[in-house]
């Protein structure tokens, strides 16, 4: 019996819980004697709180507490910056002063004995402000761009002389792009249930990063991290909004302490647009120079993104521009635009998705100027190495992605002329774009317990917001231990489990997967060590080097006879579970030797109604080089979901702010448009065969982010092909195309 758990299209192990309503999300861990909290947000976008009339509201039915900066405890707010917190600046200190920094900032929290009573009191609470007009438009002349302080992605880079080469280039493209703010809009609202027991706090809280939530809340309250437990077995979609610990978590904990009872706090959908991060609006300029036969001689990529006044949110807006194309002269520049808004945060494909929208659009524009097919143009500029880092790629299958995608899409039959393809009165456009995302591998830990019945329990803090962490980690453990899937129980979403990095950045499979594998090997080693030392074991006295694990049995090397099973070994040793933990991290030397990224090519067909300006996606093919695919069924779904996220970015998603007060105008799911079933045509995701021995022990590259990157520029390029009009802002709306 040779187990092959990895690489097989297993159905998800959490499927039954999710189709029966049995999966419990954060708000579904009601506690005995629980009260309800509702947040009151500022109705001005900048200024100072003058007065809060708590007295009247405190007398309303069921109200137990009205907490504002006037009576909230002074919290420690010790320094803490986790991997998903901005490196520079200081997080919002909630209810600690009278300052209003952005619209919707929490100014009070009401606690009542029912949700209805809390909502009613929150609506009645009178707060008066000395309001000022906030600056919320990046194009506002009052916005002063700043260079981000030191950080991974923020640095300006230059090689050669890009400006001189651009000036001298026979063929050039220069264009500016404006991409809208987006909100993650997961289906599940943020929610926290807080319960104190003495000086210990338990939080059932929506989180993609439970160990960071634990550390952050401990720092805010000035208490030992060991006294905070964060529990989150299921996340109803995240896309990045649950990577940080936002103020409502602190408010729930404050409220619960104040009233001495467990408190549940669920943000309203409207509040999800205020204080839980967003993809920053970005302004970009791209200038390309090329020879007449399509060799890039200059690539200039300048971009800036929104941030708050109190933190520098930095994303990798320009980082792919250094290595996507072979080009001797490259200059990138990245600035932040501090405004009176909450701090943005990572949203699926952060930075790369926004930055590549601009560059991939400009490359497409160049292809028309040159009269060269856009796929061929990319082939002519495919680099042999990462020319920014001067390192070989650990693997790079971009051209194979283009070949596979072009074949499945039927790209060869494209008429290259804009407006040349039609379906009745509809204009048809075919567009293409590249995608890339780094292969992160952050330190992670896991532990494994082998039980007397021969099954294994595997634990890691981690998170599963939907891609299938439960399933893929079960597969890794089953494969490593040579156990059937149903003999492995993987648990996650508890801060007292072994620490893992954030469930973001497409690094869970690489990081947690490698840790699970290491922990399985460690428990096998522990069991072997005990077996050879145990007088009751048939392997007693054997040297540890003379035994090996074969298909879940500890056997003597060179001896064809199968040795004892896990069950026999654990039972023989007394029956107590045998446990081992292990960690995994990227070899620092390897990181200096290779440039590591996933790549993809996205092909789309759109139709544009020339009378209505209405764009519809008609079909799309994504081809990805993402290393080893652990579960093709889940991976395909993850990619198609990512492509639909890119569809939203291209044609729908945009958070509009009222310039008078910074209020998100469309802060609800009726007007913040996301793709619905009728918006989505036939989509295909394909994977090229790719073996990468360098990225991590599993050879996986991650999929969640790269699947979104590339979709928006492919659609924008297809809209140009259909209409002959280049729209350089996202989302592309009807009003952009009324003149086609």
């Amino acid at each position: 019996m040779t187990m092959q758990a990895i690489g097989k299209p297993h159905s998800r192990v959490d499927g039954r819980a999710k189709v029966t309503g049995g999966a419990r999300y954060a708000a579904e861990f009601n506690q005995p004697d629980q009260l309800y909290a509702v947040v009151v947000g500022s109705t001005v976008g900048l200024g100072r709180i003058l007065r809060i009339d708590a007295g009247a509201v405190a007398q309303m039915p069921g109200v137990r507490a009205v907490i504002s900066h006037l009576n909230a405890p002074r919290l420690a707010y010790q320094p803490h910056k986790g991997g998903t917190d901005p490196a520079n600046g200081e997080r919002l200190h909630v209810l600690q002063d009278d300052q209003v920094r952005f619209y919707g900032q929490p100014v009070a929290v009401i606690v009542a004995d029912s949700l209805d009573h809390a909502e009613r009191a929150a609506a009645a609470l009178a707060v008066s402000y000395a309001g000022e007009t906030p600056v919320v438009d990046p194009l506002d002349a009052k916005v002063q761009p700043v260079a981000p302080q030191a950080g991974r992605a923020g640095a300006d880079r230059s090689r050669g002389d890009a400006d001189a080469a651009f000036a001298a280039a026979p063929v050039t493209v220069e264009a500016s792009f404006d991409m809208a703010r987006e909100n993650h809009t997961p289906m599940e609202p943020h929610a926290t249930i807080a319960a104190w027991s003495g000086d210990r706090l338990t939080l059932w809280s929506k989180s993609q990063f439970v160990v960071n939530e634990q550390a952050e809340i401990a720092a805010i309250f000035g208490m030992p991290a060991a006294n905070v437990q964060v529990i989150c077995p299921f996340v109803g979609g995240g896309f990045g909004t649950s990577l940080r610990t936002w103020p409502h978590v602190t408010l729930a904990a404050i409220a619960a302490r104040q009233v001495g009872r467990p408190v549940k706090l669920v943000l309203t959908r409207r509040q999800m647009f205020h204080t839980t991060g967003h993809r920053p609006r970005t302004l970009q300029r791209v200038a390309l120079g090329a020879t007449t036969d399509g060799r890039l001689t200059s690539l200039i990529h300048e971009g800036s993104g929104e941030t708050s006044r109190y933190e520098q949110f930095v994303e990798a807006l320009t980082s792919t521009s250094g290595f996507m194309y072979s080009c001797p002269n490259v200059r990138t520049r990245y600035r932040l635009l501090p405004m009176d808004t909450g701090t943005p945060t990572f949203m699926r494909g952060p930075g790369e998705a926004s930055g590549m929208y601009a560059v991939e659009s400009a490359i497409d524009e160049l292809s028309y100027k040159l009269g060269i097919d856009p796929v061929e143009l990319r082939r002519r500029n495919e680099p042999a190495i990462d020319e920014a880092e001067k390192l070989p790629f650990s693997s790079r299958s971009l051209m194979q992605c283009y070949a596979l995608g072009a074949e499945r899409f039927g790209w060869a039959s494209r008429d290259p002329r804009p407006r040349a393809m039609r379906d009745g009165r509809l204009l048809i456009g075919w567009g293409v774009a590249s995608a890339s995302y780094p292969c992160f591998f952050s330190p992670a830990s896991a532990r494994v317990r082998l039980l007397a019945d021969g099954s294994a329990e595997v634990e890691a803090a981690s998170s599963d917001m939907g891609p299938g962490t439960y399933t893929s980690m079960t597969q890794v453990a089953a494969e490593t231990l040579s156990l059937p899937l149903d003999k492995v129980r993987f648990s996650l979403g508890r801060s007292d489990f072994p620490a893992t990095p954030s469930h973001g950045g497409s690094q869970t499979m690489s990081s947690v997967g490698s840790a699970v594998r290491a922990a399985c090997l460690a428990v096998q080693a522990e069991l072997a060590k005990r077996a050879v030392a145990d007088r009751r074991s048939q392997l007693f006295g054997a040297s540890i080097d003379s035994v090996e694990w074969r298909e879940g049995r500890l056997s003597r090397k060179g001896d064809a006879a199968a040795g004892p099973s896990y069950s026999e070994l654990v039972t023989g040793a007394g029956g107590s579970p045998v446990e081992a933990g292990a960690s995994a991290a990227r070899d620092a030397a390897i990181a200096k030797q290779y440039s590591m990224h996933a790549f993809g090519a996205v092909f789309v067909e759109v139709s544009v109604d020339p009378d209505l300006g209405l764009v519809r996606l008609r079909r799309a093919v994504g081809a990805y080089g993402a290393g080893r695919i652990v579960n093709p069924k889940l991976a395909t779904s993850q990619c198609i979901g990512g492509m639909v996220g890119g569809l939203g970015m291209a044609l729908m998603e945009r958070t509009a702010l009222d310039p008078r007060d910074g209020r998100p105008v469309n802060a609800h799911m009726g007007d913040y448009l996301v793709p619905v079933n009728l918006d989505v045509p036939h989509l295909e995701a394909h994977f090229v065969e790719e073996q990468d021995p360098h990225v991590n022990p599993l050879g996986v590259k991650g999929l969640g982010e790269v699947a979104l990157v590339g979709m928006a520029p492919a659609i924008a390029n297809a809209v140009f092909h259909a209409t002959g009009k280049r729209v350089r802002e996202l989302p592309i709306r009807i009003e952009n195309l009324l003149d086609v």
Partner: protein
Amino acid sequence: MIAPTPITLTVNGETVAAQVEPRIHLTDFLRENLGLTGTHIGCEHGVCGACTVRLDGEIVRGCLVLAVQADGKSVETIEGLSDSGALDELQAAFRDRNALQCGYCTPAMLLTAHELLARNPTPDRATIREHLSGNYCRCTGYQAIIDAVEIAARARAGAKS
């Protein structure tokens, strides 16, 4: 009017008598008062469909129905429909096709698909897309959901023949 009001209704076949606040909607009543948390809340204004339940056999948005409006009526939720086996083929197909990721929209998606198949046992893909268009999903990209409903329809047709 904020005083609790008595209501009596049937929930998943069992009679429930409760005092409810007049402003509380059916989904909050199910989740907070009865602990039936398989019905979820997404948008709170009838757009996303995550709170879909059956009220006297018709699917409704639980966030647009006040609990007091359910007085004297019969409510069925994912928990009850699961236990009864009514969703067996759909649930199996959703699992087999990976027509769910985070799972938050899934119970409501199943109820809406179940309603479609009750009306139209052999819908084509366009009909399925149209019917499910009021149920948002942010993870799967919908395609596998369409596949799953098609498969479930075939399974039901096969079981009857």
